Each structure stands twice: as C-alpha cells, then as structure tokens.
C-alpha cells in the first residue's frame, strides 16, 4: 500500500479562525452555516453565505479546501434549512459537504450529484457494512470515523471499504458514539442531532457555595470544584458523578484527545485525513494546533520522528488522552 501524505482538516468557527487555519498550514478547513443545520450551532459562531463566499476565495487562493458541515438531522416537516444549505454549498462551490442524515444524503446525491459528499462523524458509521452502504447508496467519498475504534480496527476497516477515512486527532472528545447521544437533550431539551448543540451555555449555571463552585446543566449538578481546582465547562459526559458509592468522572475525565505521536501509525493504517476538533475555539487555539500538526504531518510524511510537541496549554483540563485509539481506553 502506498501511503500518501495525510491531509490536515482544521476547524473554522469564524472567518478569523478560517484565515488562521489556512495561514498555519491547513490543507482543508471545515465550517458550518449560522443555524441549526450543523452540530456547532453556538452563538457568535459560523458563517453566513457572504462570509462563506469570502472564505472560499481566501482558502482557494492559498490552495486549501473548504468543507461545509451540514451534519445535524433535519426536522420533520421542515427540510428547508437543510436542503437550502446543500443547494447553497453547491452554488458557492464548496469542495465537499459533510452530511449525517440519510434523507439529506439522498437529497444531495440526487440533486447535486457532482457535489462531493463526506459522511459526518455524526452518522456513526463504525464498520465496513455501514460505510459501504453510504458509499453505495449516496456516493459518499470519505467517512469521518466515530471515536470508537482502535488503530488496529481502523487499519482493518480501511482494507474493506472503497472510500477515504478521516479521523479526529486533537481536541474535544466525545466518549459516546457520535450522533447517537441524547444525554444533552435529556437534561436541557437541546441535542447535537436536533439543535446542533451539546450541553448548551444557555442551560449552564455556576453557583458559588462558600469556597466551592458548583456547575449545573439544566437542573442537574455536573461538577463541584474547591478553590484548588480549575472549574471546567459542564459538558455532561465530562461531569463528576456518584455510582456505587464512588465519586468519579465515570464517563471521561476533563481531557483532550491528542494523538500527534501516533501519526505514523495512522498513516500505516491507511487513513487519508486528520481532523482537529474545535470550531468553538478561538483563533489562537486554531493557529497553535494547526501549526503543530502541520509540522508533525510533514515530518511523518518524510519519515522523520514527530518528536515531542507540547500542546497542553490548549487542552481541556491540561490533560491528554489517546481515547479509543488505544484499546485499554475501553
């Protein structure tokens, strides 16, 4: 198998982040429209049509691609925002759309056959049969893999599918199979699938109790910190809970995915593209993460050891994990 240079796919939550990513060496940026059609539907983020057109010009001039995430699930009786997003993606000339919903994949394949389609991580296609299904039925060309597979499983998978794979390498870490998690809506009524948000800020409260700080999501306490601890954001699955009499971060510690030292393994596993999470993060995060991975990807392609890269300052809780890529994580 010939191993090609890994493609670096970087987050662009804003036009400024897009320029930072492109300037720092992104091969592609991914972004969304400013509405419920994408899974990062946060206030102050994302692009309107004019901003996307500008972003496309900027990225294309510098040789970078633009991928548009339309990866929430259209509401019954209200397909308009989602089909219009696909139509506008085709009209404006984005390099690919990233889709999750089968109905929308079907629409895109029939209406805009020449518009390149990637399968979002939100589709949770975690095995050859499911991936082959999306490739066969909707002409999907690349699959963003859910964060449930080990590197060995990814290598095996890549032998059995006719499409490219893209994997997350850095940033926030979903510990549940993506697109199949309703924890957020159970507590808040808002979910990634339906609203494009998880543990939304609109439902977060921090309550001071003496020298302790309690973080709440909806009606539920998600964590409590004493003065020596850094109070993190109450993402539901990174909360501290009590099970069988024991208090712990049962689902996952406040931590970030970082597998910068596994790039040669991912190349060998036949992966095509690497994804950096963080459309909700600022320009400085994007610039630092993208620059570090740009260098690491170039080194890995040249067969030079990636070496130690310190990214702890931009990781959650200043902690890092290889997540599901290592089997012991399970």
């Amino acid at each position, binding site marked *: 198998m010939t191993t090609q240079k890994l493609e670096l796919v970087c987050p662009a939550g804003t036009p400024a982040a897009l320029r930072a990513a492109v300037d720092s060496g992104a091969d592609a940026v991914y972004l969304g429209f400013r509405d419920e059609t994408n899974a990062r539907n946060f206030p102050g983020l994302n692009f309107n049509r004019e901003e996307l057109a500008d972003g496309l010009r900027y990225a294309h001039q510098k040789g970078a691609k633009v991928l548009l995430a339309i990866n929430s699930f259209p509401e019954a009786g209200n397909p308009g925002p989602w089909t219009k997003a696909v139509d506008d993606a085709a009209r404006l000339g984005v390099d690919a759309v990233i889709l999750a919903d089968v109905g929308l994949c079907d629409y895109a394949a029939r209406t805009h056959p020449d518009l390149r389609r990637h399968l979002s991580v939100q589709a949770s296609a975690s095995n050859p049969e499911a991936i082959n299904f999306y490739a066969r039925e909707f002409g999907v060309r690349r699959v963003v893999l859910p964060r449930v597979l080990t590197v060995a499983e990814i290598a095996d998978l890549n032998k059995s599918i006719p499409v490219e794979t893209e994997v997350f390498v850095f940033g926030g870490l979903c510990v549940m199979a993506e697109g199949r998690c309703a924890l957020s809506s159970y507590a808040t009524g808002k979910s990634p699938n339906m609203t494009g948000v998880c543990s939304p800020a609109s439902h977060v409260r921090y309550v001071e109790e003496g020298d302790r700080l309690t973080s709440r999501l909806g009606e539920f306490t998600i964590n*409590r910190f004493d003065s020596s601890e850094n109070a993190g954001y109450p993402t539901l699955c990174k909360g501290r809970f009590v099970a069988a009499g024991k208090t712990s971060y049962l689902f996952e510690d406040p931590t970030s995915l970082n597998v910068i030292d596994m790039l040669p393994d991912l190349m060998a596993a036949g992966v095509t593209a690497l994804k950096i999470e963080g459309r909700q993060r600022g320009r400085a995060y994007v610039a630092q993460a993208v620059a570090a991975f740009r260098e690491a990807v170039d080194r890995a392609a040249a067969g030079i050891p990636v070496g130690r890269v310190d990214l702890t300052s931009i990781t959650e809780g200043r902690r890092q994990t290889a997540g599901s890529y290592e089997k012991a994580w399970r």
Partner: protein
Amino acid sequence: MAARLTLGPVFYNWAPERWRDFYFRIADEAPVDVVCVGEVVCSKRQPFLDPMLPEVIERLQAAGKEVVLATLALIMTRREEEGVREVCRQTDLPVEANDFAAVSMLAGRPHVVGPLVNVYNEGTLGYLARNGATRVSLPGELPARSVGRLAAAGLVDLEVQVFGRMPLAISARCYHARSRNLHKDSCQYVCADDPDGMDLDTLDGEPFLSVNGTQTLSYTYVNLAAEVAELQEMGITHLRLAPQDVDMVGVARCFRELADGAREAGQAIARLDALCDGIPFSNGYFHGIEGVGAKGPLEVVE
C-alpha cells in the same frame, strides 16, 4: 384500530435462566403483540443468551406473538459485524436493525428499523421504506410535532416507546467496568450486578442516569400513558414497552387497557407508579422539553 404493543429487547445483562423465564412469562401472560429478542448492547453477552434463544422464540410464537430479532447497536469489530450478518441472513424471523449496517444487510426484504437508528424526518423515513422497512420504531428524542408529521407521511407502521428507561447513548467504553477499575476486555461481567441498570447520581445525591455497560439510559422511566390516545390519533400503530426489572406483565396489561380505551390515564399512571417502586416517570421529550421533564398528569405523581 387500537395500537399493538411491542416489548422491546431486554437491554440488561440478566442471568440466562432468568432471561428465559422472563420471556416464558411474557409468552404466557402478557398482552403484547410483538416481542423483540436478542442482545443489543454488548456482544460479549451474546454467547450466554444463544443457548436459550430457540426455546424462547418457540414459546413466544406458540403464544401467538410476532417475534423479532434485534441486532447490536454499535458494531465495531469483524466478529460483531459477522454476528449481525448471520442474524440478517436468516429468513425465519423478521429482524430489527439497530445500526445502518443492518439496514444495509436487510435491503430489499421486509424488516423493522429500531429506535437506535436515526430517523428524524420524512426523507430518511422514505428512504427506509423504499429499502424494505415495514415498521420504524422512532428515536425517543422526537417531540410530538415530529412524531405527528412522520405519522402523517403514512409511509410505514410507526412505533413510539411509551414505557421504560430511554436509551440515551452508546459507547465503545464500558462504564460498568470502569466503575470497578476494570477494562472492558476483562470486565468480569459486572453489569450483571445491576439488572435494572446502575444508578448514576449527581454530587447532590440526585439520581440522574442509569448505566448498563456501554449504554447510558435515563434514570426516569418514560411513561406516555397520558399520551396513548394522542399517539393513536396520530396514527402510531405500535407502542413500545422497554423491559425493566418490574412486573412487565402488569405494565403490559396497563397499556393494553389504555390502548383499548378501557382505562383512564390517571388511573393507569397510579397503577404504573405502584408497579415501579418509586422510580420517577418522565414524558419531556414527547412534549418538546428536556427529556427528564414531566408534564400533565405525571407531574402529580412526584
């Protein structure tokens, strides 16, 4: 026509004999029309149920139940994919797909799509109908407005979960194992200690979620007793009961009477409350608010 009742698959790791005896009693006593059997959550449990499956299926069929084989929700390994393929390959029984891999394997044949497959809109529903789905069990997150619109599309029979813990998430990671400082590969099957799930409380001691190995469910039991009439008016053909560690025959009788218009919702809720040993009920998702919420007659049960 009054809705039919579906008993969803047992999500928990019950001892094989207990699992068998549960279905024997369902066959003999429960007024349900459809029964889904099979391991959905963790492939490591499957070998323990396999020896029991033929006699369970036989007993249920002899009692006139439609038996449906449910497939694994999260397929990650070759072995898991092959296991699901084997279920989909047999033609004796209908299969309920819980992942798009199974949807793919069942293409062109009549089949059921389970609630762990994302069906949020008419586009996806239409695709699945063309692919051969005859019944779709809708995701629990859907509000009444979406349920009504999908029912109005009139494409396939539709089912809504009306009782039991709502499955909220599935992961590669086993939280039961993690709670005991074990890895999934050497889990010692500790999930069997919690036949109705392991309570996950907040730091304030408030019950919040329920952990079942790699699956996370609501702590509350969904209870749409007061919404049964509305669901039937919308055209929902099947009402799903999720097995919990309570008298499911009693639960099934309650919903049968509700669907037949033979019992008033308030009465049914009081009866279900008595059967469910103080576990709080919720119906928030259906009412378009947070899933844990309780609207209408459920509020007074608290």
